């Protein structure tokens, strides 16, 4: 499974598929991979993204409006898998589109498309019995979110249920940029580390090269989401891919030491 991070910190890039349109998303994805993203989170647009801030809400709304479906996300993934065999591919979604597709059908189709992992925003470990079984049958890594509010016993269960990596939410809140990283993130990673040897990726609100480098001091990878989606929004369809390439190169530029292999 290529859910691996080649440099420290590893870079997980989130994009909302279908924003502004599928063809542009394809170009953006390729640009992000070639600029150094280790893992791509392909966001499935949803009408009611209640864990997202305004930037991803707007992207999701645009993608829903132009008719982007879970089918399209899977088809894009299959293309990317052929074109860039080494990249990690994760489907990032709310649960309802998956339920509607059928949990088993979805896992089957995701496996066929060459997806490595799945992250369902509104799925917690207690509700995940069927999901975990289906993911196991189809060799998909289930990735769960860990929050600063999760007590240790939950972190233990989250770590045990996750594969590929564990996603640590940097703060209480929705997705979106923030000026400074709170101490929540580092504390959470330290607590989580006691329960898992999996890589830990920190996400929510990381937007600057400085923050990216800071996360590298205590975590294995950083997830960049809203900052990429905002860049796409500002650049417009024609310049989106090149802007994303420049943005990601800028993040990597902030890492001064030579890249070291992830453990």
């Amino acid at each position, binding site marked *: 499974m290529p859910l691996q991070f080649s440099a420290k910190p590893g870079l997980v890039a989130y994009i909302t598929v279908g924003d502004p349109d599928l063809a542009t998303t394809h170009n953006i994805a390729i640009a992000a991979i070639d600029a150094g993203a280790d893992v791509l989170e392909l966001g499935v647009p949803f009408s*009611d993204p209640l864990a*997202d801030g305004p930037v991803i809400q707007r992207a999701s709304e645009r993608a*829903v409006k132009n008719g982007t479906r879970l089918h399209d996300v899977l088809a894009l993934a299959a293309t990317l898998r052929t074109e860039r065999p080494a990249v990690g591919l994760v489907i990032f979604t709310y649960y*309802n589109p998956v339920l509607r597709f059928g949990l088993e059908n979805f896992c089957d189709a995701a496996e066929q498309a060459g997806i490595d992992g799945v992250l369902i925003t*509104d799925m*917690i*470990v207690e509700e995940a019995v069927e999901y975990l079984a289906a993911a196991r049958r189809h060799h998909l890594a289930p990735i769960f979110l860990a929050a600063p509010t999760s007590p240790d016993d*939950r972190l233990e269960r989250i770590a045990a249920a996750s594969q590929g990596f564990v996603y640590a*939410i940097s703060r209480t809140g929705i997705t979106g940029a923030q000026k400074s990283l709170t101490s929540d993130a580092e504390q959470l990673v330290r607590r989580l580390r006691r329960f898992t040897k999996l890589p830990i990726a920190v996400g929510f609100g990381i937007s600057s090269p400085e923050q990216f480098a800071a996360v590298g001091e205590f975590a294995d990878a950083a997830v960049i989401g809203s900052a990429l989606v905002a860049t796409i929004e500002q650049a417009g369809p024609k310049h989106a891919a090149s802007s994303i390439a420049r943005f990601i190169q800028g993040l990597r530029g902030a890492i001064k030491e030579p890249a070291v292999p992830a453990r």
Partner: protein
Amino acid sequence: MAAATANRLAGRFGPYGGRYVPETLVAALDELEHAYAEAQADPDFHLKLDSLLRDYAGRPTPLYFASRLTEALGGAKIYLKREDLLHTGAHKINNCLGQALLAVRMGKKRIIAETGAGQHGVASATVCALFGLDCVVYMGEEDMRRQELNVYRMKMLGAEVRGVSSGSRTLKDAINEAMRDWVTNVRTTHYLLGSVLGAHPYPTMVRDFHRVISREARAQILEKENRLPTAIIACVGGGSNAIGAFYEFIPDKEVRLIGVEAGGRGSQLGEHAARFSGGSPGVLQGTYSYVLQDDNGQIALTHSVSAGLDYASIGPEHAALHDSGRAEYTSASDAEALEATLRLARTEGIIPALESAHAVAECIRLAPALSPRDILIVNVSGRGDKDMGILTRELHLGN
């Protein structure tokens, strides 16, 4: 995973319910579940709540024999359960008093709520004033426009009303925004959810706070008629007044339980909020239940003349009652609800909320076919003052 399995079962109604939320909220839901269980076992909590319900809210509410409506329809004997007479004008205060006491027990000083018709927002603002808590109410801009009076009432009571401009700018969008606030401020804030919706423990807890409706109604009808009613009729938005009106009658198998959804202005997706005729099981805003959605799992837009019924999902316990057949669900159109409002006003001198008017509309359809031996209880969940703008326009009262 034994603990996880037990947890999972606690919030399930058949296959429905559960807890589909971002991880950040789970600790707060657990805290609420524990606080609620402790309160349930604490006689002092019940004493406090009962005395507030009696002396502040005005319980018990009357079970009123609507003799003129009965006569006009020429069939079943009709009783009205008068939740409209409660302080703030709707059943919503039952739940708000309960949850406010819990918030105080948990030491949370900031309350957030969503509102559609504004009745839950007003009841939330009211209990926050009463307990000295900060109150922010999320309300879709479309609902702020059509339920304007309630916006001013909330402000008068000291609440901050935040307009929501996403989606169809109605109840569902207000809940999304409230959940975003909660996820951000979860350590200091209690989310006072206004119906039997959302993640466990809300559907169970909110239902329990409204059970008093059927507890009273059952005792009242036995006292007045010495027998149980043929049917209980209630409107169903999220389903809180309906589950409250049904609950104590569930073991009485001979009593029909009839929920009335918003039929809106047509049967196409987007034109109504009849989840059982137009929806299918799915997850929305924390719970697994019937949802109006398209083939790709995107949540559909809804329409109803009544803001309180204009919502794409329905409480999970209703989904279970629907599937088991213990309760029946039907719908009334915008036009039928408006007509029923006028009818009740002119025959009984009671102006119901447009939500409640959907239940009255079903009673008007059903009663003539029944015999005078039959008894119908209609839950009048709220009063219609908030709807005077819509009623004036739709019924041409300005002329």
